[in-house]
């Protein structure tokens, strides 16, 4: 079986089988990343362009490593947002890149839908590395991979996604993917950060963190964008941390052995207490490590190299 898609833009249209295929493909690359010589020739002669309109260290580096370990040629292209203001449309930028025979474009953009707009206009495969508040499919896939690696079956799995769900592309992608695989997703945060109609996507809404955590096996914390404080979404970081910060005591409300996840970068002492971030239940660094293997799997499947 292969992924019969030109692009990976969103997890909403993917089937459970397609998601499982990506996770299985990542398995073989996880083994590669554990070798002394961490490189296979699968994408030799292919060109991957990282087109990042928004600053990102983690995701860009992860894609870069993934592509390099597959022996692809990698170009990092980070147009300043001002060059876009100067007049070149996203599509023109991408067509220029395409003219240089890029096989895969990995796009990060601050606007929802940027990846879809791009994919319609170019023949290269497009991988969405985060578009506005819309989706961040590869992050959700590496989250799923990490959950699966811990031996947790998705069917009936109880997952709490905590924080600013309204402005989170990570939350949206995870809600789509987890629901498809049969997990029970809870979203919890202040009502100002829970978007309209989210329950129709398959999530149950909670405003009280303690209630939401009872009996869950996975706690997925979202990063609080500290600059949102001035926009009447929450009164103070202090109150946010008190109501929605994950402390050691709160972790105890979850099922024994529950894991704690975070897409990073973390705000220690805000959404997550330092002792939780560094505890045995935290899989935050596993997520980062798995990110490379999962992205190798995705690049491999998207390149049609199989």
């Amino acid at each position, binding site marked *: 079986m292969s992924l019969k898609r030109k692009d990976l833009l969103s997890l909403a249209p993917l089937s459970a089988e397609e998601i499982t295929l990506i996770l299985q493909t990542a398995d073989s690359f996880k083994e590669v990343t554990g070798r002394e010589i961490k490189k296979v020739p699968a994408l030799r002669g292919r060109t991957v362009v990282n087109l990042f309109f928004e600053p990102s260290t983690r995701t860009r580096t992860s894609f870069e490593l993934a592509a390099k370990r597959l022996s692809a040629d990698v170009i990092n292209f980070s147009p300043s947002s001002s060059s876009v203001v100067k007049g070149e*449309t*996203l599509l023109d930028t991408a067509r220029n890149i395409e003219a240089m025979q890029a096989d895969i474009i990995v796009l990060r953009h601050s606007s*929802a*839908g940027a990846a879809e707009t791009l994919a319609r206009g170019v023949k290269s495969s497009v991988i969405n590395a985060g578009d506005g508040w819309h*989706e961040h499919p590869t992050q959700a896939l590496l989250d799923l991979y990490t959950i699966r690696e811990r031996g947790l079956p998705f069917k009936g799995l109880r997952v709490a996604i905590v924080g600013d769900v309204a402005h989170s592309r990570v939350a949206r992608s995870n809600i789509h993917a987890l629901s498809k695989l049969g997990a029970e997703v809870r979203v919890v945060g202040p009502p100002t950060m829970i978007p*309209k*109609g989210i329950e129709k*996507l398959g999530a149950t809404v909670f405003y009280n963190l303690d209630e939401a955590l009872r009996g869950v096996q996975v706690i997925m914390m979202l990063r609080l964008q500290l600059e949102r404080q001035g926009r009447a979404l929450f009164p103070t970081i202090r109150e946010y941390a008190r109501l929605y910060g994950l402390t050691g005591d709160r972790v105890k409300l979850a099922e024994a052995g529950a894991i704690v996840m975070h897409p990073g970068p973390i705000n220690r002492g805000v959404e997550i207490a330092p002792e939780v971030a560094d505890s045995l239940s935290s899989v935050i660094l596993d997520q980062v490590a798995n990110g490379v293997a999962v992205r190798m799997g995705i690049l491999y499947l998207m390149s049609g190299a199989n």
Partner: protein
Amino acid sequence: MAIVIQGGHILDPGRFNAVGDLVIDQGKILAIGQRVNIPAGATIYPAKGRLVVPGFVDLHVHFREPGFEYKETIQSGAASAVAGGFTTVCCMPNTNPVNDNQAITEFMLERGRAAGLANVLPIGAITKGSEGKELAEIGDLRRAGCVAISDDGKPVMNSLVMRRAMEYALAFDIPVVDHCEDLHLAEGGCMNEGLISTELGLPGIPAAAEDVMVARNVSLAELTGARLHLAHISTVGSVRMVREAKARGIKVTAEACPHHFTLTEEVVRGFNTLAKMNPPLRAWQDVQAIKEGLRDGTIDAIATDHAPHATQEKQQGFTEAPFGIVGLETALSLTLALVEEGILSLESAIEKLSAAPARAFGLAKGTLTAGADADVAIIDPQAHWEVDPGKFRSKSRNTPFAGWKVKGLVVKTIVGGRVVFEAPVPA
């Protein structure tokens, strides 16, 4: 030279609705009826099977001149208007510079005359630069030829300034037009707030952003006695409040746009920038409310909010792309679809495109009565056609209706007794 439009179905809403002849002379309607005298030497236009109606009046267009001539000029906008059967158009003041003074108003009028197509009537700004702070010279604007005042897409947020504008406007009996949107509540949103904005991760504009401003404006109209006209209303709440305000005798009129009674927010899926406009496409129940408002008379007029933008602007990402679509060349067909659907009678559909908007702004237009300006549209009501933006007279192509198969085509448009548009004969 006289013109006789012979044997068509003449529909002058509220006045005449039968097969007959329409005689035009000296730029005016000379006679309407079944047994009219045909002046010697008159040009005869046989109109059997055609619908002969007053030229349409659009209270809400953006012709972009001065300042954004790459999107549209008064010439190209007027050409688009007459191709859609519109003989009178009211131009919003969000040009660059803003139409907040006599010189710009006179310039627009002059360009309209030079184009020699539709009657181009400027709407002046409410405040200087449409900045919502100081009143523009409304007396001057009125004297120069503005038919209404509005800050359109930059609604006056300060309620005191709006109150003063409404009071001041009383002296000139000029309607005050508001684009009802609380900019704080809209907060940079780019589509209707709801399940779809949540799924797409796009910032939403709640219906309440419109509703609270409709409520404010209605209250201020009651307080001041001003003539309030609400632009492009799009929500259940707006329709309810306008209905209630009218019942209480407040001087308020309202318009709705074809896209708001034809499309829902579903069309945005796929990040379709041609479905991005402000107010945004709303939910199903809002569309139903707009139709009901049109049916029961709560909504007086159909206006296009014709908002041309260049292709490259609409090719940007959804959040960056500008709001708005062109509408002059599709409005008639979309309105006639409401007749097919049984929402409006043919007569009231035509009225909402002609006599009713003319009344809302107090324009001596929108009628075929003897002595009126000879502004006439001749329509083939049975013609089926496919919307092809490449054939638009407008400079811009930004429509979500490309490829739609629609019914009802303008075959001839007459302004001031002169034929200004004739549909090309299909090869």
